[in-house]
């Protein structure tokens, strides 16, 4: 049985599944339920400065994108940080940590970009017994208008500066939560590292308008006829998050910086993918908001089964395992040739592969009178679109053409040796193969 124990920055938790700082972790009541359900840790909903708490809108706070059968694919929110008094949150955190010493409890923090503010609040929060801090430089809505959240996260110098202040104020681990609303994730990640951060967590939510109310002509969620951009999360953002995690993991400057992976983790498989691309653990929000805390049980059992099947005995053996295979386009093997293969046994004859290929790709699929679909190897460029639009998983696959065998499309045998764009004769900047 695989050991799912996570040891992220020295913070131990029975599994690598933490709840992200968000509405599910706003109160003792919720967090206790989460721990009872089996979550390994929580990042408490972001705490703000002492004094009158922030206020939230009293209209809708969420918007959504749905897939088939109204599956929630993307969620957008305009909720701010906790709107409960700091003292109440700190009391609750203290109680919860005391009752669940084996679970990770991280305090998310967001105060104005002034050294005094951070120096004052960090030690006070540490008294709760929390295991570490997460600096919220990510929220793209509301708080950013006040110079906090992503307004900090978009300026690497600020990230470095504030991280340094916090590291000076505590001995506990400091995680910097990054915003994806930037052009290159490496700059803020490098700044966090330079400021002494123990880890980065990403991604926070993406600036978004999920839909427009076409009657009122207003973005949704609509508050009295107006809407504003919110933070987008859920399964739809996972590909964006995976890429950013992988970039940090493989870049020489940031390689080795611990990462807490966030963004659309919905199943054990999503979590395994984040781990494989270099995340030390994962944080989840939308899946819990969609299905309740119980989903973690599937994540635990699924990850455990998969690790057993693969022969991985600990989480550490999985972390970063796919990072060496993340490369630049220019290094992809141009001599690797595949062709689509349609399993006639599995085909249900919907014809979507044909429509996709005929209308939008390379006219490489034929359709007979009795709806038998076949691949024309002399036209197939192996784009994979047919695989992606086929409703039956595994019905269409890509077959690798063995070296020496003929590629019907080019009329040439498949070359055995690896060759990429850097040495390709069509590349004006090509360097001679050595």
């Amino acid at each position, binding site marked *: 049985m695989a050991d799912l124990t996570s040891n992220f920055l020295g913070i131990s938790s029975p599994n690598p599944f933490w709840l992200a700082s968000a509405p599910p972790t706003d109160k003792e009541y919720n967090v206790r339920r989460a721990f009872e359900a089996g979550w390994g840790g929580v990042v408490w909903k972001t705490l703000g400065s002492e004094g009158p708490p922030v206020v939230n809108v009293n209209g809708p706070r969420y918007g959504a994108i749905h897939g088939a059968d109204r599956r929630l694919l993307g969620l957008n929110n305009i909720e701010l940080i906790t709107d409960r008094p700091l003292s109440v949150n700190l009391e609750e955190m203290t109680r919860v940590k005391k009752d669940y010493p084996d679970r990770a409890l991280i305090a998310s923090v967001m105060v104005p970009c002034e050294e005094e503010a951070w120096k004052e609040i960090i030690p006070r929060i540490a008294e709760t017994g929390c295991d570490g801090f997460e600096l919220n430089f990510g929220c793209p809505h509301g708080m950013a208008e006040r110079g906090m959240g992503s307004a900090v996260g978009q300026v690497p110098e600020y990230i470095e500066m504030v991280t340094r202040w916090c590291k000076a104020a505590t001995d506990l681990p400091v995680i910097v939560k990054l915003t994806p609303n930037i052009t290159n994730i490496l700059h803020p990640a490098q700044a966090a590292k330079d400021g002494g951060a123990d880890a980065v967590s990403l991604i926070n939510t993406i600036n978004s308008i999920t839909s427009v109310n076409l009657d009122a002509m207003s973005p949704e969620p609509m508050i009295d006829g107006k809407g504003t951009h919110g933070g987008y999360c859920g399964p739809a953002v996972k590909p964006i998050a995976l890429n950013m995690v992988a970039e940090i993991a493989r870049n020489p400057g940031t390689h080795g910086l611990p990462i807490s992976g966030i963004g659309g983790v919905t199943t054990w498989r999503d979590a395994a993918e984040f781990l494989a691309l270099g995340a030390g653990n994962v944080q989840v929000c939308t899946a819990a908001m969609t299905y309740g805390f119980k989903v973690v049980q599937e994540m635990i059992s699924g990850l455990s089964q998969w690790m057993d099947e693969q022969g991985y005995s600990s989480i550490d053996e999985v972390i970063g395992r796919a990072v060496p295979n993340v490369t630049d386009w220019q290094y992809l093997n141009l001599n690797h040739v595949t062709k689509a293969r349609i399993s006639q046994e599995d085909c249900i004859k919907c014809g*979507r592969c044909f429509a996709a290929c005929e209308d939008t790709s390379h006219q490489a699929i034929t359709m007979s009178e009795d709806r038998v679909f076949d691949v024309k190897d002399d036209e197939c460029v192996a784009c994979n679109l047919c695989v992606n639009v086929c*409703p039956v998983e595994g019905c269409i696959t890509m077959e690798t053409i063995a070296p020496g065998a003929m590629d019907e499309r080019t009329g040439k045998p498949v070359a055995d040796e690896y060759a990429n764009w850097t040495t390709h004769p069509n590349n004006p900047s090509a360097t001679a193969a050595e």
Partner: protein
Amino acid sequence: MAHINRENGVAAGRLDPTQVADNFTDLHPEYDGHEALVAADRCYFCHDAPCMTACPTSIDIPLFIRQIATGTPEAAAKTILNQNILGGMCARVCPTETLCEEVCVRETAEGKPVEIGRLQRYATDTLMASNTHPFARADKTGKSVAVVGAGPAGLSCAHRLAMLGHDVVVFEARAKGGGLNEFGIAAYKSTNDFAQRELDWLLSIGGIEIRYGQSLGDGIALDALQSDFDAVFLGMGLSAVNALGMDGEDKDNISDAVDFIADLRQASDLTALPVGRRVVVIGGGMTAIDAGVQAKLLGAEDVTIVYRRGQEAMAASSFEQELAQQKGVTLICNATPVGVEGNGSLTGVTFAYTETQNGKLVTLDETFTLPADQLFKAIGQKLGDTPDALSLDGGKIKVDDAQRTSAGGVWAGGDCASGGDDLTVTAVAEGRDAAMDIHATLMGAS
């Protein structure tokens, strides 16, 4: 405990009114909005979709389902009605299990097709509930067309002609329009007077006049129609029924299933409609099923449908057969009637077993007798008398691919015409296609 009248013979009021009302509710209740969205989500939007090919009216099914899924059922309805103006009724009565739904790729994939019929009903009901008609008439052509029969074929033809700008007069033998939609379909498939509501809605396009109580040979003559109108469409269905050709067929309580079904559809109070305690239906088609099931639902204690060939040869779909069995109707196959019992009133029907030998149905010596108070014959309908000018083919009016008959300026479609299955949807397709050919002919474009 509900009261059950077990009196022998043929009697009314066998079940109490609430039980009867419950028995005759909608067979496939309409979807609510949520159900429709869930069902629509299952459609894969197939390329050159098999369902569309299987539909006699070639409705663009993937498109209309996508229109439902995207919140525009009214647009979906227009997609349907553009091909099939009686799409509302077809959604209720089409044997979808042998047409669109049989070839749905999700039937292939999971043994559970997209519920196309019910989705079609959702779309068409939504549009009709808005009391709007999605089509407008073209500028008047000055041409007029006579349509004989206000059933599915005639109404489909009339609507398309009216839409194209022609004036249409429909001659209908009965006092009500709708044809088999009104008189010949099980009540639980067309509830709340749907056939008449659909007829009224169809006529709201304008340009169609219906003259009731007139049929060929009774008030109108084909040659007169040919001279009075620019074109004639015949869609009068099959007005005669086949007989068993057996001694004693004229006994009391032996009747044609089509008459029982029509009486039932026209009854204002089903508890006043008499039905036998023990009912036997002879036949293997939809009419036999509709009569047998409805007799059971009215409170007949025993209902047996007897068919002379094997079950696999029954014209009624397997869905219909299962429906009958689920309602408690017994199916007996490979038996043919050889005599009726009783003095004056019927007391039983005697059958001989049959067997198929070398492709031929052979009646065996062994017989059995089913006690029966009432016998319904459902062994097929046939064309009534037709004018000599019309050539026949297999007992039906011979038509070509454009629904043209052998008589000049005369088209025909639906059950009275050759070709195609005797289905509402087929009649609609033929009426529509005839209208298009009539239009092309009258406007000189053919």
